[in-house]
């Protein structure tokens, strides 16, 4: 035995002589670590107190970049964490003070974005002069508090809590999807005992059906209630709750009911154990065998920051990334679960529709030659290009440049309406950015249903309503918003009443300090959009929503491509260009109405999914999806972000801008850029804000420089812009999970 110990000591970095020297105080404690000495904390505490402790421990960096903002110096208090003094503002908890001091306290129930429950007891620390260890997440830090996180008492307390938690937790880590990223697994390795003393049977809990997205194994639940608090506080649904008491306590929906929230997938992330895991991802992969690619989401105009986890050529799952300005740490269910659409209905070869109406795959060389020939046969003004809702800025500028070179100026982006205004950026951006919505005290939603159009913006509004009791008024078709709101009316009639000061809501709006008016992008498709915008601008003027320090005039866009398309100037020259088109270039445009297209028009569909427009297409160019290419997207608040390729392209597909560039050469009007860098140099000349990625470029000119006009307003009510939240684009329409969701979760 002694021989092995000596060998081990020789291998360790500490020289044996120093360890064995009697002056070294560390040698007083046992160096073969076992938990037995922790069972007698008093004795070892006495031993530790005798040992000469270093006077000033080295400063540690705060956990996870934790920062403190102390508004006024008299609010600051000083506490000592493991003998190291830290200054924190009043009202912080002991756990937060420890994080600032760089000590990571183990925790299960505490989550910085949720209310404090204090029921897991894992965060116990020792505080001097307190008779018992205290739960640091629930204890406010007091001036001069001496917090000890690493004493035998604290260690023993954690070990005991761990033993109790593991008493009923099944030991099925090898078949648990959380294995490898499980808080309980990690913390039991770090803080737990090496043995348990319970020999009785473990309890078992019936699994709950929470719908097609969240898989439950309720026996694994440790009753931290994070999911319950998330559902009630962030998602705003009262679906989850705690049932029973004592050892009969369990999480569940109160009645046999699914969890109907557009944010329900986030309970998978906040669950510290494997009780709530992803149902589509169940038993598909282990987290250590996947490659994470930090990219952004394109299913809505918010541009949530996501990490795409892939194994080989396959996207295995999507998880959120922290971005305080955009999505905090949540993502919507569509973002999280639509990835299986990337494996279905993919276009992988260039195809031409033959005389029999069936598609036949051809080589790129032939396909490009056919299209180039057709393009030269039609008149230049009969060429129309439509960018789809998932197009990136690079391909849109290439498309616009190419069609301009061919002599056509009819390039548009679907969703922006037939006659968009792109002159003033403030007229199509969310000018109070998403984070700035938290400062608003009155919201007026005009024809916008943020819960289904942009769940992350809706979560922000809900957060504001919860925190500051901001008032929300809504004009539009009946909808289900998950916060208190006033439904003022269904159509422009109510809007006019408010604009003319006849509506009772006006008094609320006028007394508001920071009013935020949010217009839905569904209004872009209306013929009287100018009149509605004029009315909203009048309201904004009356309620002083546009000031130098506050811009409360907002447009909530629907699609990822919209903002960049307007910045790049994708505006058609003629209003009826689709009807008169003889050559239609659809770059991923599936939601554009093709009924007006004449029968002899030649339709080119370039995209990654065989979706709606393919039925009309004469020729198909396969292109890469957003997980396979590098592209710039601008979100609704004007923040440009880039996707990063996570997986290789499918089949013979090419990036969108490369196809346009190659076609331009075959058609004889070659575009002058060959690389992404060159195409970005071109974007710099048109819209330089698209190149400053991850930075929000606010609109500089406000709306009041616009000339006054009188427009005719139709009195037909606003329609909802999104029919089915789970199926809005070609990828989510191809997704099986999204189909299941719309079957089971949509309220009919």
């Amino acid at each position, binding site marked *: 035995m002694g021989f092995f110990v000596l060998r081990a000591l020789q291998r360790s970095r500490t020289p044996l002589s120093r360890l064995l020297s009697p002056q070294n105080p560390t040698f007083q404690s046992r160096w073969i670590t076992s938990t037995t000495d922790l069972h007698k904390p008093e004795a070892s505490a006495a031993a530790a107190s005798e040992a000469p402790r270093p006077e000033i421990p080295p400063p540690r960096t705060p956990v996870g970049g934790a920062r403190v903002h102390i508004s006024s110096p008299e609010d600051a208090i000083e506490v000592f964490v493991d003998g190291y003094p830290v200054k924190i503002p009043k009202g912080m908890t002991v756990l937060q003070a420890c994080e600032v001091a760089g000590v990571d306290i183990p925790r299960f129930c505490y989550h910085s974005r949720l209310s404090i429950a204090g029921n897991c007891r894992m965060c116990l620390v020792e505080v001097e002069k307190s008779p018992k260890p205290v739960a640091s997440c629930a204890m406010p830090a007091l001036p001069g508090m001496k917090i000890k996180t690493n004493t035998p008492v604290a260690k023993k307390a954690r070990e005991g809590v761990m033993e109790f938690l593991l008493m009923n937790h099944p030991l099925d880590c090898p078949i648990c999807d959380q294995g490898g990223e499980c808080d309980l697994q990690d913390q039991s390795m770090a803080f737990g005992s090496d043995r348990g003393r319970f020999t009785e049977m473990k309890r078992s809990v019936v699994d709950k059906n929470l719908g097609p997205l969240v898989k439950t194994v309720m026996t694994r639940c440790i009753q931290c209630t994070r999911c319950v608090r998330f559902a009630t506080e962030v998602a705003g649904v009262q679906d989850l709750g705690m049932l029973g008491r004592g050892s009969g306590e369990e999480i569940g929906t109160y009645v046999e009911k699914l969890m109907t929230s557009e944010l329900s997938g986030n309970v998978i992330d906040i669950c510290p154990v494997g009780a709530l895991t992803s149902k589509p991802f169940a038993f598909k992969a282990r987290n250590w065998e996947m490659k994470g690619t930090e990219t952004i989401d394109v299913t809505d105009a918010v541009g949530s920051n996501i990490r795409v986890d892939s194994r080989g050529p396959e996207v295995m799952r999507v998880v959120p990334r922290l971005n305080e300005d955009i999505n905090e740490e949540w993502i919507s269910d569509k973002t999280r679960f639509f990835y299986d659409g990337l494996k279905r209905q993919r276009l992988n070869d260039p195809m031409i529709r033959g005389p029999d109406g069936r598609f036949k795959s051809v080589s*790129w060389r032939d396909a490009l030659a056919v299209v180039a020939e057709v393009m030269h046969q039609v008149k230049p003004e009969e060429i129309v290009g439509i960018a789809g809702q998932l197009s990136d800025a690079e391909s849109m500028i290439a498309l616009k440049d190419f069609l301009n070179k061919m002599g056509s100026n009819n390039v548009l982006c679907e969703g922006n309406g037939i006659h968009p205004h792109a002159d003033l950026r403030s007229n199509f951006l969310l000018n109070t950015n998403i984070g700035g919505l938290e400062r608003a005290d009155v919201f007026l939603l005009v024809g916008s249903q943020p819960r289904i159009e942009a769940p992350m913006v809706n979560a922000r509004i809900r957060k504001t309503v919860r925190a500051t009791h901001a008032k929300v008024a809504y004009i539009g078709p009946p909808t289900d918003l998950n916060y208190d709101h006033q439904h003022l009316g269904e159509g422009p009639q109510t809007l006019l009443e408010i604009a003319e000061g006849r509506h009772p809501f006006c008094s609320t709006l006028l007394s508001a300090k920071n009013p935020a008016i949010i217009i839905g992008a569904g209004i872009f498709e209306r013929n009287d959009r100018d009149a509605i915008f004029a009315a909203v601008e009048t309201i904004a003027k009356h309620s002083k929503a546009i000031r130098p320090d506050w811009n409360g005039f907002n447009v909530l866009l629907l699609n990822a491509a919209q903002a960049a398309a307007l910045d790049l100037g994708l505006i058609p020259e003629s209003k009826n260009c689709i009807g008169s088109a003889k050559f239609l270039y659809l770059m991923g445009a599936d939601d554009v109405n093709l009924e007006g297209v004449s029968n002899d028009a030649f339709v080119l569909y370039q995209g990654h999914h065989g979706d709606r427009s393919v039925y009309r297409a004469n020729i198909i160019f396969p292109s890469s999806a957003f997980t396979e290419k590098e592209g710039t997207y601008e979100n609704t608040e004007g923040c440009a972000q880039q996707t990063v390729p996570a997986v290789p392209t499918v089949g013979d597909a090419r*990036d969108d801008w*490369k196809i346009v560039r190659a076609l331009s050469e075959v058609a004889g009007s070659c575009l002058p850029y060959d690389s992404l860098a060159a195409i970005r140099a071109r974007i710099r000349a048109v819209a330089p804000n698209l190149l400053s990625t991850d930075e929000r470029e606010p609109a500089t000119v406000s709306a009041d420089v616009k000339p006054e006009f009188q427009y005719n307003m139709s009195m037909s009510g606003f329609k909802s812009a999104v029919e089915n939240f789970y199926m809005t684009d070609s990828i989510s329409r191809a997704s099986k999970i999204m189909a299941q969701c719309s079957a089971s979760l949509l309220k009919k």
Partner: protein
Amino acid sequence: MSFIARAIKVPPNSATLEEARSRTFDFFRKACRSIPNVIEIYNLYDVVTPSQLRSSIASQIRKNSHINNPKVIDMLLFKGMEELGNIVEHAKQRHHIIGQYVVGHGGLVQEVDTKDQGNSEFLKQFYTSNYF
């Protein structure tokens, strides 16, 4: 251990470029002599003729014709002998031989298109792959 090491003794390095050259020819002859055997064991009768295989071997050797360091040539010869040994011992399968020596690196589609003459470098690369 030692008896295996003795059995597969690596021959000493070539002293001069001349010696390396003659060894290369020896290797080529050896390879050519094994061609009928290779065609027999991999059943390549209706796939390839001996002369095609010969020219394939010759082109593999010519690919390294610019090398004039005797040590490097010896190393390449050793690798060639190893490959030849593997083939003759039937350590490979039929598709290995067909893929490497019959079809070659160009693949089944031969780029013989003369239409690409006037195209830019971008378009030529576009036709081959998405990644450039």
